[in-house]
């Protein structure tokens, strides 16, 4: 028992020494979260603004000009130019110069008053569903007649009360999700590579000929990276709070607890990969095979409930799905970890399964 602890400690210390000398990896520990946070935080914006647009106004009446001005005032679109015909509008759309075209026919005023036909047309680059969503939003824009209101504004059927993110900022949702994404990438990759590198350099042939036990080796490899994962977590949350004003409403202890289990789950997966891969390149490929679906179907990018059932079922296997729910719950909603124990349990199950497989697969023999 005592000997076991000595050996685990020895592997840990060696791992730290090597890390401190591997400047590139060391840089990645800090660099990856920093760059990705800024990149994703600023780039991913589902709250679309400033789509380029053009319009044709064949009516050219007081009312139609007012209508165009209202559209521009919404800030959703930026009018790039006014063209002479709907055909030119289509050409611009084809060329990709604009995402939205507005065609106002010459009988615009009559159509508005008549109310039985649409008054104008929106030409939309519908290949991008997000832009299509914006078009729907625009089509609901009312036409005002000067300053006087013809009809009293009808009270909407439903009132939207926006919880947790009243300003509708994407970063609020992205940053906590990013914690999981970055940890998935770095944790799986680091451990997978850490063992495969020893295989490649021949260190493993020496190690497996010593009394060290597989479990001791694996634990010694995992502990240093848990610490690194926690450093990354703190870094991302601090930067998210500083750059994007993402609040942490729940308890920090709960965040740490959830992250610890999630990190351990990813590290176990990394170990499992390392027992399959024989070169660092293979380890990297396998990591990405796992990483991409994690990003796409874990609920990080798209709402989980909107996905087909089969995708949801696959997503339930991925640790990132459960961690996203945990971290968003704790950080954004101030939820208590005890109310999400099933998510935590899922992570523990994933970790136990992969770690057991890794230990079983890791052979202290060469055959």
């Amino acid at each position, binding site marked *: 028992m*005592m*000997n076991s602890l*000595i*050996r685990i*400690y*020895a*592997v840990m*210390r*060696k791992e730290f*020494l*090597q890390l401190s*000398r*591997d400047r590139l990896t060391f840089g990645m520990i800090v660099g990856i979260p920093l760059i990705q946070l800024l990149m994703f935080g600023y780039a991913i914006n589902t709250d679309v603004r400033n789509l380029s647009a053009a319009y044709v106004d064949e009516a050219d009446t007081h009312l139609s000009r007012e209508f165009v001005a209202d559209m521009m005032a919404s800030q959703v679109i930026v009018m790039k130019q006014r063209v002479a015909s709907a055909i030119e509008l289509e050409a611009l759309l084809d060329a990709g110069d604009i995402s939205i075209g507005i065609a106002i026919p010459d009988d615009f005023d009559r159509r508005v008053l008549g109310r039985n036909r649409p008054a104008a047309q929106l030409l939309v680059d519908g290949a991008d569903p997000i832009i299509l969503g914006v078009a729907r939003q625009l089509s609901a824009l009312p036409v005002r007649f000067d300053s006087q209101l013809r009809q009293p504004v009808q009270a909407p059927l439903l009132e939207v009360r926006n919880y947790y993110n009243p300003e509708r900022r994407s970063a609020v949702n992205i940053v906590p999700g990013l914690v999981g994404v970055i940890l998935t990438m770095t944790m799986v990759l680091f451990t997978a590579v850490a063992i495969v590198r020893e295989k490649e*350099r*021949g*260190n493993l*042939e*020496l*190690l*497996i*000929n*010593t*009394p*060290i036990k597989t479990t001791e080796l694996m634990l010694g490899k995992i502990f240093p990276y848990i610490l690194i994962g926690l450093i990354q977590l703190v870094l991302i949350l601090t930067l998210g709070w500083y750059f994007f004003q993402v609040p942490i409403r729940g308890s920090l202890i709960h965040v740490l607890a959830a992250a610890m289990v999630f990190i351990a789950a990813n590290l176990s997966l990394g170990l499992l990969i390392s027992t399959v891969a024989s070169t660092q390149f293979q380890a990297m490929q396998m990591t990405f095979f796992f990483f991409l679906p994690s990003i796409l179907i874990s609920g990080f990018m798209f709402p989980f409930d909107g996905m087909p059932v089969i995708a949801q079922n696959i997503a339930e296997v991925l640790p990132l799905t459960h961690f996203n729910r945990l971290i968003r719950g704790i950080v954004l909603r101030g939820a208590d970890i005890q109310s999400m124990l099933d998510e935590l349990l899922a992570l523990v199950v994933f970790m136990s399964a992969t770690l057991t497989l890794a230990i079983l697969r890791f052979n*202290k*023999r*060469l*055959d």
Partner: protein
Amino acid sequence: MSAKQIAITASGLTMRFGSLVAVDNVDLEITKGTIYGFLGPNGSGKSTTIRMLCGLLTPSAGSATVMGMDTRRESESLKQRIGYMTQRFSLYEDLSVKENLQFISEIYAVARSERKNRVDELLEIFSLHDRTKQRAGTLSGGQKQRLALAAATLHKPEILFLDEPTSAVDPQNRRDFWETLFELAEQGTTILVSTHYMDEAARCHSLAILDEGVKVADGTPKQLGESISFHVVEIEAENPNRARLCLLEEGQIASITQLGIKLRVMIPKAVGDPLNLVNGKLAASGLAAKTELVFPDLEDIFVAVTEKRRERQA
């Protein structure tokens, strides 16, 4: 066990990789406290045999015991009692000399109180004390090899497996290295060393010659020399090339090797008087030469036993 204590035994040890038979039915019996050599060209199964004896590879057939322990079932408990030096440098190149040894001492769970002393002692023995802080990756071939041996002997193993330990080392370092091996053997360590250098093999107490996975001969260098069915005649001729051409015509001569101005000729033992045969042949061609019957060296033995096997196969 008799007066002669046995450290390693193997019977019918076989390793197949697919259709390739890397090690074919090898029997071994290695006495405690001796240096035992595996001599053979690359690909003759030396490394594979060592790996099976360490318990790193599971034999396809046959069995082996090391210090009375079965290499299949008891490989884990065996690890504390054996030391293994891999063919390729396998310590951590990004750790310093001292850090590497400290790491190994912890892995073998050397008692805390002894750890520092043992590491310092090894640094002294292997003259690495002035390089303690140097990264292992920047050491020279000879220094790396000394560090590897230091690491392999750190836990004072009873048996040391060395897989081509001197392949990247200059002659002076090789000589020093072998002196260390003899010191270790004197202290009771059994050493199994693989090599393809004849001069190294000649230093071993006894050795096995491997060829394509088959053990073609074994014994002490003296026994091996006596066992082969050839006489070896050394010829010092004024014109070795002409002498060689002349002797090539003689059908009873098995092989002729030129070493500088000397020729080494192998003649089957069936020929009663080899000197007479050679002298007669040379005199007939009018070539002046000094001839002498010599004891076969390992190269002669190696050629003789591997040729014999090929003939049998053909």
